[in-house]
């Protein structure tokens, strides 16, 4: 099994995703933006960075790249796609996940370690999580998650909110001005998935804290979740997405 990591011109955290997948014991494959051919990988990561420079708006040009055609088809066929940071922005711009990422409330780039908590442990992207807060870095200027109230209600109702920023006591940092909510995201949303449950995006970087030597390996919980889901999907003969529930939660 192999997991693909897309490199757009301007991607810079592709090395981090490639590294984390390798640390998880899975072969990592670099996918070039000019080809829609995903080389038969079992899951795709859209990594962090500044695709095409992001001078206009984060992710807005990357969505038109040939590789995103391949990624959209892969997702429609039930394959798992994880967008991290700029990858989340690209997914949101592409309409593959709901919502939009606006400039941070501070209007400054924010780089720090935050705590996020998975909302559910039965999703393909959280199945290996313990349920405790996960400490991972953020590094972004446009990470303020936004959508209208109706959409936010629907996302919460349908279990599409995967991660929220949490305070030191583990409760969601719902106030956009709460210091534990690093970018002012509405309802403290740090990550969401699509309705089918096989495409997810999050602003923090679990792949950059997937080794104990870097401070903590808590981020590995999410990489391992993706690996498990990809393996299961391959083993089942690449079935269509089923609404984002994994049958058996593997810890």
């Amino acid at each position, binding site marked *: 099994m192999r997991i693909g990591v897309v490199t757009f011109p301007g991607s810079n955290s592709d090395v981090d995703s490639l590294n984390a997948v390798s640390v998880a014991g899975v072969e990592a494959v670099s996918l070039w933006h000019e080809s829609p051919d995903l080389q038969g990988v079992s899951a795709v990561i859209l990594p962090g960075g500044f695709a095409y420079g992001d001078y206009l708006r984060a992710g807005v040009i990357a969505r038109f790249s040939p590789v995103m055609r391949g990624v959209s088809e892969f997702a429609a066929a039930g394959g798992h796609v994880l967008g991290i940071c700029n990858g989340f922005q690209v997914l949101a711009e592409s309409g593959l996940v709901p919502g939009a990422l606006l400039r941070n409330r501070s209007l400054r780039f924010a780089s720090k370690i935050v705590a996020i908590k998975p909302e559910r442990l039965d999703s393909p992207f959280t199945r290996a999580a313990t349920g405790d807060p996960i400490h991972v870095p953020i590094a972004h200027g446009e990470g303020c998650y936004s959508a209208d109230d109706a959409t936010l209600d629907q996302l919460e109702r349908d279990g599409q909110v995967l991660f929220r920023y949490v305070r030191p006591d583990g409760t969601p940092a719902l106030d956009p001005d709460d210091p534990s909510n690093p970018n002012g995201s509405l309802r403290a949303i740090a990550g969401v998935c699509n309705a089918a449950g096989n495409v997810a995006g999050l602003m923090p970087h679990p792949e950059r804290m997937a080794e104990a030597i870097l*401070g903590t390996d808590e981020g590995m919980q999410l990489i391992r979740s993706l690996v498990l889901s990809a393996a299961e999907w391959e083993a089942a003969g690449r079935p269509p997405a089923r609404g984002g529930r994994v049958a058996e939660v593997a810890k």
Partner: protein
Amino acid sequence: MTDVKSTTNSVEVTLELAESLGVTAGGFAVIREKLGRDPNHTELAMFSVMWSEHCSYKSSKPLLKTLPTRGSGVMAGPGDNAGVVRIGDGLAVAFKIESHNHPSAVEPYQGAATGVGGILRDIFTMGARPIAVLDALRFGDPTDPRTRHLVDGIVRGVGGYGNCVGVPTVGGELVFDPSYQGNPLVNVMAIGLLEEKNLIFAEAPGEGNYVVLFGSTTGRDGIGGASVLASATFADSDPNKRPTVQVGDPFAEKLLIEASLEMISRRLVVGIQDLGAAGITCASSESADKAGTGILVDLDAIPRREPGMAPWEVMISESQERMLATCTPDQFAAVREVCERWGIPIALVGRVTTDGDIAIVEGGVDEAGRPKPGSTEIARIPAKALTSEAIVHYRLATQPTRRRQAPAPGIPLQAQDGLPERGMDPAAVLVALLGSPNLSSRRWVYEQYDACVQSNTIEWPGHGAAVLRVKGTRKALVATTDGNQTLSAIDPFLGAQMSVAEATRNVSITGARPLGITNCLNYGNQERPEAFWQLQEAVRGMGEACRALDIPVTGGNVSLYNEYPGGAISPTPEIGVVGLLEDVSLLVRPPFTAAGDTVMLVGDTTPGMAGSAYAALAGLSAEDAPPNLDLEREAALQSFIREAIGRGLVASAQDVSGGGLAVAIAECSIWSGLGASLRLGVSGSPAIELFGESPSRLVLSCRPRHAPALELLARQFGLHAQALGTVGGDRLRIELTGQGATGAAEERGSRVADALDVSLADLRHTWEHGLARALGVESGSGHGPRQETATPAGA
């Protein structure tokens, strides 16, 4: 084609024109001598930028030659784009620091951003992948609106470039000092990692080889940046100099990094040089000179950003994100393919020749590399004359006269003289120091920098030296920058020595061995004998310190016109150090690690409060002396701590520097959340013991059972180690004992002995909010004032 004339050179060359380009009458005469004729306009423009201080080091060269540059494992040093030192496993580290002071003062965002871009190019030009940036920033009064504007723009610029290009900013400095009010300093250090076999130099060997230019197109931005901006002092505000500031494009740089490193690792190019100051002129002449060749430049082939550029503008433009490489003709197709894949424009702009000249042809060059019929040679200058044989000025050095002679370093005065410590509450002083703009947390700044991209960052900014693992090995690199401007203002020789001592000490206390230093020398106008004396003393001090500590100087940069109508900056020798930790599992950090551990002070506290943070706070009289520095003792201290860490005896180690022992210990407590109960013997003055900044000292903590072994080991290194007490609790309490401890408490009507006693919560609060308060920005989660700026903002 020997007729060096053209309509494009129709401007009459006069001394007045030369002087307007920054060439002096003396320089103009030397140019005529080197050429054997009058230069034309294009040639004069090329000389003017290449003979600027920025490019030629014409004032500093005779001094810099005295520095020790050899050392074990040094593969490249001064004269190359960056120093390169072997670290084993077939790997090497490249590092260099450079200033971008004047551009940042004129246009803070772009000045700082292009400072980052320029130093990164110096790194990957050696074949190294940039893995870290450190930024050392210096400003005037933090409460001044103009300073705040500069801080905001410069911090955004450093972050805007580094964050986008994907190189983590892992450390640096932020210092406020009145001398920088009109002339801020932006010194940026970059570190790269390379396989030894990929080391490449900026040279253009092999007659007939192709010289290619790739990256951004050439425009009118940054014309004369090296000569006009970097090598002249400031008038009060110079908006007309804004066009001399370049504009950065980090996205283009990211592509350039990938394309260049691919060409180098695939052996497609035989030499490569970045285009920085003086643009194509500098890159071509340095490459030719280094290889002992010449280059015939096909002016028409250089891709332009805008029409109507004069040849001299093309030749000296400092448009960013460009590279000049040399390849054999049969590799050209492969080089072009790499560029096309990364979407980078590339052009064949010249051929390597054997005549040693940079010759510029307008009107086209044929397939065989010969000027086409009807073409014109518009300039011809020996490459050497522009670079290695550029003009050298032997400047006059004069020690400034002082109104009153300062006492020699280290000579104690009456302990109480000038020390306003009667009635002093040491805890109040500590709180004030920790909340001061220079000692409080830098979080507001570094939270705007991506610190962990590339997944190598072990120690994030904020707690001493940065630590980066080396993937695939057990090794780690430890990096820091330090510069002591307050002591340099008093004694430039001592200040430079102190800067080297502190920077290397900060690396050694992690257990790492310093591999080399890179330096950025920020001084005033060298045409003033006093300013040249300061530089001369600093280079002497730096050289002496490096020899004593056995560390080579692997590169550096000079910035010599840091003056404005209010005066010159304090001399600022910024020292960057990279160290190697062979086994990352042995890494020791500054914070305490466990309650019950023993706290020890290693090294002797000596008098001399001048230049200290305490002096700045308390208004110390100018007559007090700076502390003494014994380089042998410093070397012993650094050897001792590396040895102790290697033996696994040390739990935490912290350098005693700004704010003295009390601040050092407070930081160990704040960063760990662990208080301490300590007793400190006071022989002379509580202020000297608690807040003096005498060098060659460190605070460590260890398991109690290791304390005797550490004391013994210290003695073997000729050092004095004393146990101060124990880690634990939620307060920092330092009891003062001994004959010097009486007085202050009685003065306050207290019957207990003097003690510094303060809660960790109070210390943390003042430390965390000090900077944001000084700058008038909110602290907290990095939510600051709302300002719009046209920058890449994604992630």
